């Protein structure tokens, strides 16, 4: 059963068109990667979904058209966007960040349970629970960003470059936690990642973007080691 479906989606920043026609679909509980070189339109594809860029084409979530919806509206439908650069609320404490994540929820008990789960998933956050987010390390901020998104109890997680700026071992640890989150929660994921090898540890299928278009789509096993992948990243 398809959860998210993009059909021929275009997007532009002012007069500059960045997406020329991207199509992809994420099944319920599935994990799909978006790969490609810098400027290929990976981040913009996520932004088109969460409603932070002007878009054309068709975007449906759970059968409902969401193209052009405001970001908070999209979030309320069950899509949590972990933006590039993490987007943690810098002056708020770790606990407050996580509480903001659960803003739309009313089920106090379940929120408390999820908070415990979140701290179990990212034990580093437990020690920093009262620190301001700005004081965290890059890896901890990334964990907080994922944790905040999880606290919304979404059906789909949009994950943008979770490894960006992290030491390789930290990036691996973050991905390990996200893998565990996927297994235990069944949340569907759409994952933008520069580091293709890291992405393949998490996703089932992936699509490769080049200058705002899909050029290749396949299962992770098929795509691993293909020339197109290397070419897409080197921009050749």
């Amino acid at each position: 059963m398809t959860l998210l479906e993009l059909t021929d989606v275009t997007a532009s920043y002012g007069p500059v068109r960045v997406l020329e026609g991207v199509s992809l679909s994420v099944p319920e509980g599935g994990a799909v990667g978006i790969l490609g070189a810098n400027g290929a339109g990976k981040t913009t594809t996520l932004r088109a979904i969460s409603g932070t860029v002007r878009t054309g084409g068709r975007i449906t979530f759970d059968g409902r058209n969401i193209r052009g919806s405001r970001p908070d509206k999209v979030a309320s439908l069950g899509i949590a966007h972990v933006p590039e650069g993490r987007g943690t609320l810098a002056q708020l404490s770790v606990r407050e960040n996580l509480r903001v994540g659960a803003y739309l929820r009313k089920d106090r008990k379940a929120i408390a349970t999820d908070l415990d789960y979140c701290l179990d998933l990212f034990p580093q956050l437990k020690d920093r629970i009262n620190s301001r987010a700005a004081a965290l390390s890059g890896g901890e901020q990334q964990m907080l960003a994922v944790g905040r998104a999880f606290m919304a109890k979404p059906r789909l997680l949009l994950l943008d470059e979770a490894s960006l700026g992290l030491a390789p071992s930290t990036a691996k640890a973050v991905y390990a936690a996200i893998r565990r989150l996927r297994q235990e929660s069944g949340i569907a994921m759409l994952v933008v990642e520069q580091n293709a090898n890291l992405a393949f540890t998490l996703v089932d299928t992936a699509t490769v973007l080049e200058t705002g278009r899909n050029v290749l789509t396949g299962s992770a096993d098929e795509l691993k080691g293909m020339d197109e992948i290397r070419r897409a990243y080197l921009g050749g």
Partner: protein
Amino acid sequence: MDTFIQLVVDGLSTGSIYAALALAIVLVNQATGLINFAQGAMAVLSAYIAYAFTQAGLPVLLSILLAVVISFVMGAVVERFLMRRFERGDPDTAVVVTIGLLTLITGIAAWLWGYNNRQFPSLFPLSSVEILGAVVSVRSIATTLTIVAIMIVLQLLFLRTKLGLALRAVADNPSSAAFSGLPVGRLLMVGWGLAAGLGAIAGSLVAPQLTLTPGMMDTALVYALAAVILGGLSSPLGTVVAAWMIGILENLAAVYVPFIGHDLKIAVPFILIFVILVVRPQGLFGRKVVVRV
């Protein structure tokens, strides 16, 4: 000694007025990152609205409360229909728009009520009490206590409620807050509304002392901005303490430093700002903003 106590208490009272206005400015700054230069003018308009209610025969307290509610709506409307267009653009443009708003609102107040001084009835009795041998006006004490109470309520709102958390989240990073489903636009309206309501209280408390004129808050705005900078822009407590310091210091300096007198006392807070910012650029209570790349 009794002159000294009198001066300090009166200074606290005028400082409290600056504090209320300064808190309103901090509120908007926290929510939108810009300084609303029209905050003083909006407070004057609110005071005129309260005045109109008292003229219609309503009790003073009720008039002020009604003005606070109307001002809340006014602030929210100003955000929604005017500032919203400028929030995502160049912050300098937005600040210039607030200066335009300052002129516009002052003009509206003058057009509706004229430039003549109007006598605004005092909320508090005009009697005085004796403290440690000094004669202190009840109004000064009551004004100070009112502002302290408001500050505590604001602090509780921001630190203990879900609305406060949401307001702080939006102030911190609006686009990121939206990803968690926060209705950013509506929360910004609430922030502006709260600020305008606070301004209404400041305007109504200071009006009996200064008498109501369209330019009543001009000087207070200058002091309030001084308090905001001195307090560190992000700290409500710091802002109030700074405003009190300014109020007390200008009173003391006017009396005890002969060459300053009443004409030069407006310079006092700025000398204070200069000295403090040289030592602590982030203000007395502010946090250094560290940008992580």
